[in-house]
């Protein structure tokens, strides 16, 4: 009896200790954040992204790109003499979390000088009002039409093409091949719906019939959806999905022996398809690639900026990222800081509002341009933003369609090197 009652008494005691320590822990952690870490001397760039979820691989690539840019900029003395420091926050692609984390930083006096406001358009959408209020410069690659609103979001710029800007090459291709009817299969989420809308508008404008089928992002198989499309007999099919769904689409396509040409949209195309599918499944499958990142393409060969970028990425331990995700996505992070630095040099200032104004009237850069993505002579596009457009200008000539491939050790695309 004494022993038993002791045991009975202990349990709540232990638990009470646990409560107290947990509460104290929460307080302690929150109190431990150093205030005013961002001194005037450094230039703080904050990256908000998903470090643990489905888009983790993209986060790694973008962060690598930022690190490369920081290394190069700091080697030349920083942005207007201020050393660049990278900070990150794991928003898990959750808008509410992202806002809380940023608010916490702002309240504790850690206002970043500029930031990458999120890896998804939902997060960016949620963060932009805070950026506007605090006059923080923001550059990221979430391509949503609604975000391109300089009036509402004067400090925000996109450094990757809007999804609709990637569409014209497909229309050109369909017309060239004489296709009359185009089908699309897409994941029923934000990016899939946006992508579908872009294609639908473009094809209908070009007088080509457009049909579509969608699958939920919880699907483990998309055969029924493909059957639905197949029954409508399109001449070509565009597919969109992030990660595994891309594989499911091509797997199901093989299973139902459907051999019409399949074109990946930008999202699906960025995915390393060939590593996961037999060559037989990839017959008549094409991905849209950006010429400056295709191995052996004249736009990529001998680009000194790209070569240095790749070398620095490798020296920073980015080999695996280059192999898996490629230089194209990595460049998105790189471009963000390079653009800021370019604008800062022009304005002789690091003030957010001043830089935002400057970005709207950048001086034309001499070849080779300091950023990656649209060719050394800006022949495929440019970042010359205006007060009406905060997204890059992109020309269809910058894209080509090729069989799915892999990335070589430099992160450049090599078509048709499947297993």
């Amino acid at each position, binding site marked *: 009896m004494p022993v038993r009652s002791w045991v009975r008494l202990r349990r709540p005691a232990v638990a*009470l200790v646990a409560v107290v320590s947990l509460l104290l822990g*929460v307080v302690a952690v929150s109190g431990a954040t150093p205030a005013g870490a961002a001194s005037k001397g450094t230039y703080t760039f904050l990256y908000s992204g998903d470090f643990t979820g489905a888009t983790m691989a993209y986060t790694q690539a973008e962060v690598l790109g930022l690190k490369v840019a920081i290394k190069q900029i700091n080697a030349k003395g920083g942005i207007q003499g201020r050393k660049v420091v990278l900070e990150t926050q*794991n928003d898990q692609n959750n808008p509410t*979390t992202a806002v809380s*984390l940023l*608010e916490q930083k702002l309240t504790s006096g850690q206002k970043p000088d500029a930031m990458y406001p999120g890896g998804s358009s*939902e997060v960016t959408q949620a963060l932009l*009002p805070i950026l506007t209020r605090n006059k923080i410069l923001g550059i990221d690659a979430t391509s949503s039409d609604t975000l391109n609103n300089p009036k509402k979001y004067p400090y925000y710029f996109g450094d990757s093409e809007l999804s609709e800007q990637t569409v014209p090459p497909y229309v050109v291709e369909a017309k060239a091949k004489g296709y009359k009817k185009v089908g699309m299969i897409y994941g029923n989420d*934000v990016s899939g719906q946006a992508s579908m809308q872009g294609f639908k508008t473009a094809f209908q404008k070009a007088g080509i019939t457009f049909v579509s089928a969608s699958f939920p992002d919880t699907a483990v198989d998309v055969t029924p959806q493909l059957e639905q499309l197949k029954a409508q007999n399109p001449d070509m099919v565009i597919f969109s999905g992030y990660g595994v769904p891309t594989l499911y689409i091509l797997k199901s396509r093989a299973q139902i022996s459907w051999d019409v040409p399949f074109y990946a949209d930008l999202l699906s195309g960025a995915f390393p398809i060939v590593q996961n599918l037999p060559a037989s499944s990839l017959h008549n499958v094409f991905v849209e690639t950006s010429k400056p990142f295709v191995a052996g393409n004249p736009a990529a060969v001998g680009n000194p900026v790209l070569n240095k970028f790749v070398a620095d990425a490798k020296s920073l331990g980015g080999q695996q990222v280059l192999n898996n995700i490629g230089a194209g996505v990595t460049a998105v992070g790189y471009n963000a800081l390079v653009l800021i630095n370019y604008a800062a040099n022009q304005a002789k200032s690091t003030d957010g509002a001043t830089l935002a104004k400057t970005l709207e009237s950048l001086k034309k850069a001499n070849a080779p341009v300091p950023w990656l993505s649209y060719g050394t002579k800006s022949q495929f596009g440019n970042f010359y933003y205006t007060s009406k457009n905060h997204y890059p200008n992109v020309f269809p000539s910058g894209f080509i369609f090729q069989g799915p491939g892999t990335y070589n050790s430099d992160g450049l695309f090599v078509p048709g090197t499947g297993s």
Partner: protein
Amino acid sequence: MAPTTAVSPPALPWLRSARPLMMLGLGVLVLVAPWLGLGDYWSRQFILIAILALVVSGLNISLGYAGELALGQVALYAVGAYVAGYLAVSQGVTDILLCLLAAIGGAIVVGFVSGIPGLRLGGWSLAMVTFFLVIIIPNVLDLLSSQTGGALGLSGIPIPTIFGAQLVGDGFYVFVIAVTIIWFAIFRNLISSSHGDAFLVLKQSPILAATLGISVYRLKLLAYVVGAIPAGIAGVLFAFLSAYISPSSFAFALAFTILTASVVGGSQSIYGAIFGAAILQLGPERIASFQNYSLIVYGAFLVVAGLVFSDGIAGLIRSGLSQARRRGWLSGAAPIDTVGPLAVADAAVPTAVDEAAVGPLAGATTVSTPADETAAVIGDLAGEALTVTELRKDFGGVTAVDDVTLEAVPGQVTALIGPNGSGKTTLLNLVCGFYKPTSGSVRLGQVELGGLAPYRSARAGVARTFQTPLIPKGMRARAFVATGRYISHRVSMPASILRLPSFWRGSRDSDAEALRLLTLLGIAHVADSEVASLPLGTRRLVEVARALAAEPKVFLFDEVGSGLDEEDIQRLEEAIELIRRAGGTVVLVEHNFPLVLKIADRIHVLSQGALIASGTPSEIQANRRVLEEYTGSSDTADTIEELERADAAPGPPPAEPR
């Protein structure tokens, strides 16, 4: 061993009565925090905690109090958010009060629509229905994309207004905190009223609830729908806070966050929701800083939280307090549960010390009255005759009750005896409505009971006690006895919430009546003890008091004497005698032959479902067939086993329907 005569006072009386005030004070402090130097970050955190706490409090009502696992709070939260979002964006309605009203309406409608199929059947079906409700959120939003923006979400929700003035910054903060305080006051008032006790009864035992005349289905539905209200409110606040809502804000994972917050804070508690919400709001955000490891750490956090707080923080504090009290760190005598259930024999009769101790607590009116004088006190019981005519019940091929005809009249004790499995309890269950008769009729006065739902039988005037007393955990004797009056002396829910005079009158009367009945049965000293921890004999008597409180037309006592010692049995005899004299109809199902012979006016003997003899005690005693069939006094081993079982698993009997 603590003296068993010790009276257990309310746990820290000053704390109990001061708690709402303390919480209110804390609330006011939070309300004015912006002027005490609360920064933007923390004011946002407080708002988010308040929003989560609102949603969690709704779950506490249905899970913690009514005992129904509902995962649908997320859906109701989404309804609130989208109603506000739609009104503000498409209709230009920014008045936050209007939005709140509309959202509450929407949440109530969705609560009914999901609750009706989910609760009609009990068990896991509400969990399942609400689970589906959550997973179809994105689909429904997508189908209504012209109103909701589909997957892309609804952006540009304008700044809310109140009476035409914009609600921004500190203004919005104050509004959110004020709404939260108001809701928690409502929640608290609801729970600390007879309705809260009814919820607890429902959670512990739907059978007991039905016996009290409570429609299990309707009360559960009510609890679930009331729980929908704060979720709808929270949705509105969230929509205006974030100015952007999309399906990803209402993902299934949130359902688990809410459930975890509820359990961690203590589902069966009022303010636990706030603590649970604070931990679940602040914890994961801290964990996000573990970057690549954050999922693993969050998983571990959930496991540890589940293990340590399985009873909730509120539960921990409760057990911590009682522990401290036991060790003498805090004032207040040891509660009676430290006493072994078998050691109570000598404590049954109140002593002078008892009465002295009871006095100040119970008030001047409660002085133990000798049984002889109480006939007048108990008042006239309007007993009605219970007439059972050719009643039959078949289970598959087995006939459990075989064309039984008998009558129990007011002012008499009618006993029903027979060996185990002879159909006595089945007969009681037929009267109470737990079984539907195969044929025949059961009438109470002029009312046909056969086939009525249990709660309708109870409302018609049937009260019963159980072989193993059914007693909700954590309930004090006076509150438990007062549940007998829940239906007969009903105080409306709005009156309880608003603390209208009718509430005060009702609760004062119920309390006084409960105390009077306990005094009548000689157990006033346990009025403030937790019933579930009392010895079996005392629990039986408390049950009898609970049955009396309903002022029924017929009393059914099921094996009321089994497992009791001489003292308890004597007390029970007196109680039954009282009821008989007051004109009540008493039906006694009993093993204890001597007891039956002593107190019954008429005895019916059942064997294998059929009535084999009826008569006065002396006639039965002389009946050879009865003596052959049924040896008489109850089997000792049986009694002990029953007692042990009752002690091992107090509360609901094993045969509880799920």
